[in-house]
Each structure stands twice: as structure tokens, then as C-alpha cells.
């Protein structure tokens, strides 16, 4: 019987932001993540792609405990991810997440959305939190919307606010769960530009997306997932020009075909 094939796991050192070792997850009977091994170093930009249902969103949601993994070890920024609430809280402080459907808080203004976490989690004084919020809103190029409510903004603007909100906690790692999938095509560019700028500033990021142009431009590594396992990972040029696995080739032909 052949030995089970483990995906490679490079050595862990103090530069490692994410370390996942032999991670398995089940939703009831369904084995949704199989033998995941992944190490992300500081400043790396990872793009995760794959067909729907392949477990890519589940993978990154495990990193901030929005989903629980049943087997294997995950550690973020040296902190082990287990059932200890203190660890989970610490990790969530260092990990920012941007969702497909924005998940902005509709009853608070844009500025309040961004100020909320620094005030209540990092115990930042209000004036300082406001400064930080305005700084990041300026960085995502919508400072003039600060007093408005999320319902009054376009999709692209809302997603940029979501990015600013995550940045206000000054995290070590940013997770993007299909950030542009719910946007009209005219607005995708403004959000991707923001993410490219973020990458250029050295933010460690893991991005689940179908935007292959973005992957080519920004990613250090592209990971292809299918049926809960990492099928192939490589540098973008090698990945797109010379896919090794048949499944990767099939996926790329479907996604790049049109």
C-alpha cells in the first residue's frame, strides 16, 4: 500500500505567521479538509484558488476559529489555535478578515465601524482610535464617507471600508475570503487596487479569489485546492504557464478560457 502523500511543510521559525500541520476537518460525515500542510512566512502573499466546494474558504476560516478543525495543529504568529478562549482572542486580534459579503455593521457609521474594535478590544482611547480609523479610511481612499452609513455606500466602497476596518486592528495577517465575488465588475478594480497596495506595503495575506490577474501580479505562491486537499502550489508564473497536475490543468482551462 502506498504511503499517504503529505504536502510539503517547510521549517517553522520566528518569521512564520501561519503554520498548519496535518490539519483535517469534518462537517459531520463529510471530510472537508484533508491533510492540509501549509506554512506562511511574514510578508508572503498566498492566493488560494479552486472549484467551489473545494474547502478554500473553510481553510482560511479555520485560521481565525470561525471554523473548528478536528485534527492536526494550527498556529498563528506562534500562538497555538485550540479551544483556549484566551488564545483564540489573541489570534483574532492579530488576524484581520475581509468577507465576501462585507459584514459591515449597518447600525454604525463608517467611522464607528472602524473605531469599534480598537476601542473595545485594544482599549485604545477614543480620540486615538478615531485618528487611526481616519488614517486607514484615507488609505483605502474613502475618507469623505466617514460619517455615512454602510447602506448608503456602493459595494466597492463597502468592501474597502471592510478592508479599512480590518486594518484598524493593525493585524499581522490579512485573510480575504473571495473579496470581489459579490461586486459589480466596475467595482472590482478599485478593491483589487487597494489589495495590491496593501501587498506592496508588506502585509502578509492569504487570499481566496478567482481573480487570476491579481494572483499573477501580487502572489508569491498560488495554491490550488480541490476536494479538501492541496493539489498543487507553485510560484504564479510556473503555476499558470506550467501546471503539473491534470486537475489543475482542467481548472485553469475553465477559469482562464473565457
Amino acid at each position, binding site marked *: 500500500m502506498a504511503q499517504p502523500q503529505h504536502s510539503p511543510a517547510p521549517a517553522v521559525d520566528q518569521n512564520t505567521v501561519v503554520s498548519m500541520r496535518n490539519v483535517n476537518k469534518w462537517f459531520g460525515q463529510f471530510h472537508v479538509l484533508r491533510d492540509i500542510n501549509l506554512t506562511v512566512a511574514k510578508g508572503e502573499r498566498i492566493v488560494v484558488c479552486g472549484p467551489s466546494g473545494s474547502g478554500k474558504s473553510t481553510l482560511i476560516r479555520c485560521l481565525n476559529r470561525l471554523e473548528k478543525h478536528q485534527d492536526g495543529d494550527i498556529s498563528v504568529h506562534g500562538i497555538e489555535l485550540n479551544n483556549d478562549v484566551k488564545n483564540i482572542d489573541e489570534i483574532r486580534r492579530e488576524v484581520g478578515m475581509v*468577507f465576501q*459579503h462585507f459584514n459591515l*455593521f*449597518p*447600525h454604525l457609521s463608517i467611522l464607528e465601524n472602524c473605531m469599534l*474594535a480598537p476601542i*473595545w*478590544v485594544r482599549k485604545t482611547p477614543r480620540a486615538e482610535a478615531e485618528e487611526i480609523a481616519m488614517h486607514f479610511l484615507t488609505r483605502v481612499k474613502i475618507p469623505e464617507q466617514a460619517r455615512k452609513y454602510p*447602506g448608503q455606500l456602493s459595494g466597492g466602497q463597502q468592501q474597502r471600508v471592510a478592508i479599512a476596518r480590518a486594518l484598524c*486592528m493593525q493585524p499581522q495577517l490579512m485573510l480575504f475570503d473571495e473579496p470581489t465575488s459579490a461586486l459589480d465588475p466596475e467595482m472590482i478594480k478599485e478593491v483589487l487596487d487597494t489589495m495590491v497596495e496593501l501587498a506592496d506595503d508588506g502585509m502578509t495575506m492569504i487570499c481566496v479569489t478567482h481573480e487570476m490577474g491579481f494572483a499573477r501580479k501580487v502572489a508569491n505562491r498560488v495554491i490550488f485546492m480541490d476536494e479538501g486537499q492541496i493539489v498543487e502550489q507553485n510560484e504564479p508564473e510556473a503555476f499558470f504557464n506550467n501546471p503539473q497536475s491534470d486537475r489543475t490543468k482542467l481548472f485553469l482551462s475553465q477559469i482562464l478560457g473565457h
Partner: protein
Amino acid sequence: MAKKPIKSASQRANVKKTLSVAVDPQVGFVRTEPAPLLPPPPSEGGFTGWLYKNIFASMSDFGSFGGATKSIFMGFVTLILSYFLVTQTLALLDFAIFSAVWSDPKGLEREACWTVEQGGALPAGWHAACWPFIQAKAKFIFYGAYPSDELWRVNLAYLVGSVMLAWVMIERLPYRKIVGALLLTAYPVFATVLLTGGAFGISTSTIGVYTILSLALITMGRLGKAGYVSGALGDLASVAGVCGWVVILFAAVLAVFSVDFSLEAIDTRDWGGLLITLVVAITGIVASLPLGILLALGRRSDMPVARFLSTVFIEFWRGVPLITVLFMASVMLPLFMPEGVNFDMLLRALIGVTLFSAAYMAEVVRGGLQAIDKGQYEGADAVGLSYWQSMRLIILPQALTHVIPGIVNTFIGLFKDTALVSIVGIFDLLGAAQSTLADAAWSTPVQGLTGYLVVAVIFFIFCFGMSRYSMFMERKLSRSRNR
């Protein structure tokens, strides 16, 4: 843009053959100037628009035979309903205002409202309200058997409460939050002392014990926070700290209750009428909302113990009628209490009503919690907020706003359910009014109608007022979110 009509047979044949790929040179079109922006037709805007939409909507379709029949039919129905509306309203106004007897200068009592057939002065067939009856009984209806020299205390409690409430409700005033907090904490203590006379004779040693206990709990909490206790004990320490603050507030309240303000002590058995209705309703409303929220959160909790206890509480209190609760409280409870412990009757009713209402409130709030998109919970978690922080800052503000209609509905129902306390011998507004109907000095054919009319109007004022305020709150909250 209109297509050019196809004339020749050969063209027709051609179109038939190539229908799926019809290439009509007339289809190409480029707009060079914007289409004019015109005002809407009269059926849409202004007063005529309002009339069309709200009054004549179902009566103006004469385009077809079916539509015309329906329109005429709806027109008749409108006329008939309007007739009933107008006649009934006029009849009510006539009974209550136009034909009513307003004063009894000669002190005739019931004879002031008698017709000539009965021996009075009013014309035969007269049938309207007898207001002197209400004037004579007003004190009993509004205050019950409260001693007349001490009514100033009730009025003062009403005045202070109304001023504080108005302060909290009016937008422009400053310090609304502080006044609101005082209204929920200091005012009940103030009102209790004022209305009952205070001086409950709680011994200094009891207060001392509670104070020392609370200080111990608070110290434990502080130690836990500072990190001297870790792990599960640390969580227990922080819970102890919170309990400590609750206990010290309780001790402070006990201390205030034991001070002698030299007010005459008035037993709650002497309270009655509107006073009782307001005390029971307001206490029930104010206490059941936070308790209901906690139960709803408990029922949705991940902790099995919290979930089990909350579910049992809710299902039990929803499963028994309020009348049964009140009976049990008044009859059964003394059997379970140790010798000599005499729970105040009104207090028993208050506790029963509050717990009953909290169970209903819990389900209303749970509906709101379920309606919140899962993404909101995830967004709050992802940004690092703790469970209580995310509930307080993100989830509950949205959930409670969603279910304002349900919450106010429960409040209004509770307000009217307070009438049930008359079953256990407490004279609420309705009970007081009913007992005045037994007074033979005012016996007239309209005595009952007048009394019940007054009770109905008072209930309507409070319930409709709550309803209107809730509409105002809903509009204000939806505006700020621009939904």
C-alpha cells in the same frame, strides 16, 4: 424605435427562413440627446395622487366590464362603511360629550342623572354619560384607598417619573443616558420609599453582612483581573467580581429602605386604581425586558446548562396562564414560606407578572436574534470582540430594533393583563372602577357605561401612547440606517 413594416412577399419569406438570425437594418439605433425628464401623471403626485392611491384606488378602474363592476361595488362598500364610521363616532361623541351631564351643583347625586320617567330632570329617552359620578369617585379610581392627606406622595412620584421619562425621550436634552440610568435604578428605590413610607426595619447587621460579602466578591474579581488567579478559577473570579457589584448595590438599596424619613407607613393593601395598574405594568415592563434578553441569549447559548435552564424557564412560564400564576402566588406561596414570613401581596403579584412576561419577551427577542445574518456574528468575532461585547455592541442593537413591534406588543399586552390582579384581591384600575359601581348613591342606568368608558379611555391613552412612541422609534432607527 418602430420597425419598418415588411411589405413584399419575398421579404416575408426571407424573414421566416432566417428568423433566428433576423438582421433588420432598422434595429441599429444611437441616442443623440437625452430623453426629456417629465413630471409624473396626476394619479401619482400631490393631493390628487394621494386621493387616487388611498381612497379611489379600487374604485377608479373603468377600463373593462369586470373592473367597472368591481369599482362600483367597492364604491358602495366605501359608502356603507363611511356611514357606519360616521354614525358610530357621532353616537360615541354624543354619549360622552354632547348629551352628557357634566355637573351636579345641587348635590343630588344619582338624581342628577335620572330622566323624568325615573324622577329626575332629564328628558325622556336620555342616555349619556354621567360625569358627576366620575368626579365623585375620581380619587378612588385613581388612587384607591390611599389616605387623602398623603396623596401628594403619589403625585410627587408621578411627577418625578414623568419628568425623568420625558427627559430621556426628548432628543435635544443633554445627559439623557445618565437620567435614563437613574430612572432605572434610583427612581424605583425613591418611588418605593415615597409610596410605602420606607423604614422597613432592616437591621444594620443584615446590611453589614451583605456589604462585607460584596466587598469580598469584588476583591476576588480584582485579584482575578490582576492575574493572581488563572485558568478556570480566573473566570470564576471575574464572575464573582460582577456578583460583588450587584450585591453592593443591593446592600445600598437595603440601607436606603431602612432609613426613617418620617413618612407615614402605608400598606400596599391601601393602594388601588390607576396607581396599582401603573406600578404593576411599569415594574413588569421594565424588569421583563432585560430578563427576557438574558433568557433569549441563554436559550441560544452553546453552554448546555444555560440552554437547558433557559428553555425550562421559558416553557414553564409560557405554559401556565397568568391567572393561575397569580392564584398560586397568593394562595400557594404562603404554604411554602417558613412561619411568620409574610410576603407582601403586591410584591408577589409583581414577581409573578414579571417572570411571566419575561418568558414571552424571551421568545420575541430570540426571533430577532435569529433574524440577524450569520455574517454579523462572524464579522464581530473576526474583529476580536468577546461574546458579551459583540452582543451588546453589534447583535442586540440590531436584533432589538428588528423586533420593536413584537416587544411593544408584549408591553401593551402586559399593561392590559395587569387587570387580572383583581382576581387576587388587588384593586387595579378596572377593579376600582367596578367596585364604585356598587355604590347605590349613584345608581343610574348609565352608571356602568360611564365607569367602563372612563376605564377604556384611560387604557387606550396609555396603550395607544406606547404604540405611537414605538412607531416614532422605528422610524427614527430606520432613518439612521437608511434602509
